[in-house]
């Protein structure tokens, strides 16, 4: 189990649960960056230092459990195939940096995939914790418990005036990056989101696409996170983020009902066209897939489509990513082959839903 599950299952166990406002908020994430006091940061540390850290973490934490996070599995990047690493990135269990750039990188991943602790990424330790829906406070509370648990055996690099010391000045202080993944189709259709993003930025928050820095908002999925880590308490940072997210939820709901009042038929048409494309196409690229999935998800949320599971967007967004497709196909695929395989996988997925219904 363990690693095999991480790589073979598209949808993490925790993502199957419903959370508050989970029709709009797909997930909440808390990330804390920490470093060992005695070793230089991974960027310039000698391999023997990094090896020392790996051994220590493996010895102390492999197969340990905390709270509901059972059986942390220690996974070394060097021992993974390229595709396996990419799959972990696509599932957000590790960062692209850990997969590609880290010397002596590893991760501790809990069985339910809710917790992933990256080792020797840009910082020695980057723990991240996911919750379905909007649950930032809960996530922070448990991240703190996780942090305290790790700290029992680790001397953190900490300075009373600067806080937790990190490799990059943008993380110093709390080392906290709180982010919320949101599906905002109605704000995107009405183009309201473009006007809202600058305002959100002015509040010290960042809006990105689904795969982080520099990525496009594929499938109308937006990731909103804090930028400032120094000088504000974790609770305040989260409070700010939460209030903006709540505003966005409200605005998205308003935009949805406005669309329903103004142009229900057009909306229904859009949803079912996309549904048709997903059910019948033979070749489909990831961008079109994301667009159609977003429409179908909106269709489910608005009640146009009744026979598909609520988590289809979450699931197929990951399942149709390049590495996951190849993992599923059990062989390397070129881009064209991927588009063909993607189309057949999606058709299959939708026909399973239909059968289960009838």
């Amino acid at each position: 189990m363990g690693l095999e599950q991480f790589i073979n299952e598209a949808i993490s166990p925790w993502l199957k649960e419903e959370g508050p406002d989970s029709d709009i908020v797909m997930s909440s994430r808390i990330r804390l960056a920490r470093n060992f006091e005695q070793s230089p940061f991974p960027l310039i540390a000698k391999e023997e230092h990094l090896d020392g850290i790996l051994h220590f973490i493996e010895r102390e934490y492999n197969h340990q459990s905390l709270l509901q996070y059972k059986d942390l599995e220690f996974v070394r990047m060097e021992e993974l195939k390229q595709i396996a690493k990419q799959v972990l990135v696509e599932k957000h269990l590790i960062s692209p940096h850990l997969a590609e750039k880290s010397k002596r990188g590893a991760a501790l991943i809990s069985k339910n995939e809710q917790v992933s602790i990256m080792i020797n990424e840009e910082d020695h330790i980057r723990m991240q914790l996911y919750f379905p829906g909007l649950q930032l406070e809960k996530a922070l509370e448990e991240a703190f418990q996780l942090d305290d648990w790790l700290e029992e055996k680790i001397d953190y690099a900490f300075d009373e005036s600067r806080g937790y010391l990190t490799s990059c000045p943008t993380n110093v202080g709390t080392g906290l990056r709180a982010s919320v993944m949101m599906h905002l189709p109605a704000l995107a259709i009405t183009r309201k989101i473009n006007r809202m993003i600058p305002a959100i930025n002015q509040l010290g928050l960042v809006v990105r696409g689904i795969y982080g820095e520099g990525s496009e908002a594929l499938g109308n999925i937006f990731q909103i996170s804090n930028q400032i880590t120094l000088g504000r308490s974790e609770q305040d940072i989260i409070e700010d983020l939460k209030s903006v997210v709540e505003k966005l939820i409200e605005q998205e709901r308003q935009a949805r009902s406005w669309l329903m009042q103004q142009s229900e038929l057009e909306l229904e048409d859009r949803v079912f066209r996309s549904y048709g494309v997903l059910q019948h196409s033979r070749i489909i690229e990831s961008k079109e897939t994301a667009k159609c999935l977003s429409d179908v998800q909106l269709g489910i949320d608005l009640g146009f489509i009744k026979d598909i599971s609520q988590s289809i967007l979450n699931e197929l967004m990951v399942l149709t990513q390049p590495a996951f497709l190849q993992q599923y196909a059990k062989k390397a695929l070129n881009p064209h082959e991927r588009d063909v395989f993607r189309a057949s996988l999606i058709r299959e997925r939708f026909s399973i839903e239909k059968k289960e219904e009838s």
Partner: protein
Amino acid sequence: MECQECKQNPATLHFAKVINGYKTEIHVCEQCAKEKGYVSQDEEAYSLHDLLSGLFNFDSVNLSPSQENSSNQQTEERCNKCGMTYKEFTKVGKFGCSSCYEAFSSHLNPIFRRVHSGNTAHSGKVPKRAGSDIYQRKQLKELKLELQQLIAEEEFEHAAKVRDQIKALEQNLNHNGEGEK
């Protein structure tokens, strides 16, 4: 589409630059892109790191080759523990180890202020084992002094920020106190 810089060649490079969330689209030809610094010399993508290290380099944000020599005058400050120099730090935009914070401390406040909208001191979680309330109390005192001074100088905007820091610190101290009972 023609290049927006020279208005002669066709625009072959299209950028969407996002600075603090403001998206600006740039359409230029390759030559202008290089000349205007939209593409860095080694042709690698302009990354967040470049932007950041730009932030640190106050006197020479856009280093053109001819200007580079002048920045050699910067004194060679070096972290004793990991050997990183301040100059290297401004280039990479990353610290080498925890001691770098001490070694480069005289330069850090302006950098932190820019990155963390005016803040230079931590006011969040403290490690259970290593954290000491004493230092925080000291910090609190200093901040309160600063606040008085700012109010006297009628720097109210800044004062409000300091007041928030004080609030957060006090909350933190109370919180820790409760935990120790």
